[in-house]
């Protein structure tokens, strides 16, 4: 293994980690694309520093980058403050114009011959392989400072991102804290330029942070995860880039980060697409089951004149009356739901002659009773308290009944004490003469 590779690897990991950590705050502070501007605006600074010093020393180049990057940010402020141009356009103007000047200087240097000092154009797409031991020391020191600052000012940054006004009320110097965060973002971007390049630096701040957000609702965990994702991407990018001679590191690191983002988007426990789909299917299943149970119950009520005496529900009724006639839409899916309920012992299905008869088991009755009661409670609430007409409340109750928490049910019961009949089920407020679907 190339001994230099270890330097490159540690450099990339450090850069990924620190920009990931600070990126979490950049995204939450709604400064996502500021990193993009900073990176692009840094290019002319790098070129100017090179023209002035005549050598490719990392430190002066970084100073130059920081200076023009900062100038770019100030330009955005000035444009939005002094003209009617909106922030997004101002970002675009500064980004492209500074970059254009940078490209102009860069090509001028190259054409003048001095630029065969190659390396300058590695700032465009990053080349971690060009890092040497001395560079990594600079990076290590700066990255440690960054991470330390994030740890020290965690509480203040949290306030800044969440509720700046409240922080001011508490007497925190929010302006200075905002400036500090800004300075840290500048630092992270400038450091990252070597490995990732100006064009894609934005991704190092944004992508790990957005990915981390999918896994947690807590800021501290998010910052840690974001740093971890950034570090992992840096590692993956450096390793893959070492495999081929011509592969720029920047795009590889960004692709690694994008991979982590895609995994998060799909697989994160609560917010991921899989979890969301499962939740959605679960909800749909629950709704379908509860609706069917309620329909069985209400069919009983019809057959027995709606007195709602619980024991009547145990008598059987024709399945077709619950799931619809053979040609009706939705019959097949309702049949499957009925079969699932039967398997679980909530519904009894018996073939009598040519027709299937279904009836609620005692457990099924309990479950149905629960749903029907929630439905009727909600209907009562809508008619008595929200002044809705009786013929409008069924559909609303249909939606809501499945999601009323025990707490809400208890509140409904208290509120409607005068209208309902305690633990018994009372007749519906509207006629039940037709199937809902």
């Amino acid at each position, binding site marked *: 293994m190339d001994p230099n590779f270890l330097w490159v690897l540690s450099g990339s990991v450090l850069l990924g980690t620190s920009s990931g950590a600070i990126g979490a705050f950049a995204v939450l502070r709604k400064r996502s694309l500021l990193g993009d501007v900073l990176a692009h605006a840094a290019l002319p600074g790098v070129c100017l520093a090179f023209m002035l010093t005549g050598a490719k020393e990392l430190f002066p180049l970084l100073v130059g980058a920081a200076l023009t990057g900062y100038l770019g940010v100030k330009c955005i402020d000035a444009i939005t403050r002094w003209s009617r141009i909106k922030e997004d356009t101002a970002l675009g103007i500064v980004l492209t*114009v500074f970059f254009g*000047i940078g490209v102009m200087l860069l090509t001028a240097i190259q054409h003048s011959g001095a630029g065969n000092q190659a390396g300058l154009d590695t700032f465009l797409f990053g080349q971690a392989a060009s890092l040497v031991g001395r560079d990594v020391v600079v990076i290590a020191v700066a990255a440690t400072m960054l991470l330390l600052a994030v740890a020290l000012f965690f509480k203040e940054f949290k306030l800044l991102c969440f509720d700046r006004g409240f922080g001011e009320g508490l007497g925190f110097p929010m302006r200075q804290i905002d400036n500090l965060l800004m300075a840290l973002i500048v630092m992270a971007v400038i450091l990252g330029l070597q490995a990732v390049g100006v064009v894609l630096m934005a991704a190092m701040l944004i992508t790990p942070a957005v990915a981390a957000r999918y896994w947690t609702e807590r800021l501290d965990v998010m910052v840690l995860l974001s740093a971890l994702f950034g570090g992992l991407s840096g590692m993956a990018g450096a390793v893959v880039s070492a495999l081929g001679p011509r592969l720029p590191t920047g795009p590889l690191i960004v*692709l690694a980060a994008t991979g982590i983002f895609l995994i998060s988007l799909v697989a994160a426990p609560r917010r991921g697409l899989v979890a969301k789909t499962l939740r959605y299917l679960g909800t749909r299943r629950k709704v379908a089951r509860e609706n069917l149970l309620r329909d069985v119950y209400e069919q009983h009520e019809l057959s027995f004149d709606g007195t709602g005496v619980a024991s009547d529900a145990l008598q059987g009724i024709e399945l077709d009356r619950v799931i619809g006639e053979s040609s009706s839409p939705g019959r097949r899916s309702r049949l499957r739901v009925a079969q699932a309920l039967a398997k679980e012992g909530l519904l009894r299905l018996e073939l009598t002659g040519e027709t299937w008869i279904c009836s609620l088991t005692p457990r099924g009755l309990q479950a149905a009773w629960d749903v029907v009661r929630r439905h009727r409670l909600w209907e009562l609430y809508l008619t008595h308290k929200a002044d809705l007409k009786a013929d409008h409340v069924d559909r609303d109750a249909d939606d809501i009944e499945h999601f009323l928490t025990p707490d809400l049910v208890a509140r409904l019961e208290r509120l409607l004490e005068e209208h309902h009949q305690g633990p018994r089920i009372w007749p519906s407020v509207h006629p039940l003469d037709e199937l809902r679907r």
Partner: protein
Amino acid sequence: MDSYDLAIIVTGALVAGSCGFIGSFLILRGMALLGDAISHSVLLGIVLAFLITGDTSIVPMFVGALIFGLLTAVMVQALNRGGVEGDAATGVTFTAFFALGVVLLTAFAGRVHLDLDHVLYGEIAYVPWDLLYLGDVAIGPKALWTMGIVFLIDLLVVGAFSKEFKICSFDPGMAASLGINVALFHYLMTALVSLTTVAAFESVGAILAVAMLIVPGATAYLLTDSLGRMLGLSVAVGSLSAAGGYLLATWLDSSISGAMAATAGALFLLAFLFSPTHGVISRALARRRVGHRGESMLQ
């Protein structure tokens, strides 16, 4: 100045003019950064089109770019709906597409008639030699024709639906209440941006196409209060940037597209300071005059 210079300047003016024209709407709709994102994303479409068809013909390139331009807009919106804040969604999407484009470009460098420099700076300097032939007769630079046709399409589409684009930009709520399909016009605009960007891409590269999308329009926005004049001015400012940029580049022996962006920036700065109605300095002077008059009235 010979025909070589002229071909470059005219092509550059057409690029900047069409970008500025379409870009004006992006600015007014608050979609400037979507333009930025699209012009990065189209790279992937172009590279994929090359890799699949194996040649540099123009139609697959446009199709590829159009697909990824629209895909960018759709993905940003989808992520946004999923709870990712707008700027972050934009950043995640375009960097991913662009990174993949660059990696494919380098990995298959031998097979693709494109390289990183081309992606960044374009090849406007070679425009005069890449001629379009009608039978055996050369009828002028290919890029000039492509760009000219795209500009014509932009003009025709925007001209035909000018009042729809106008009201969708100014007051989407009212537009919808009149029965105008606001989403349709949003995506139509996205398609025009992709089309224009990919045509410009060849000449000025990915990142500087964005400069031409945003900067001339913003300059024009500071110079006038009428949409029609803003569109005309953005074309004029764009063309001026192209011509000025070319001269600057020849003088400094530097990248032409970089110099065009820098010139556009300089023109913007001029408008920002000295625009008769919206310039910082002109307004300050006007305030001082009013102030003096106020004082003399008091005396």
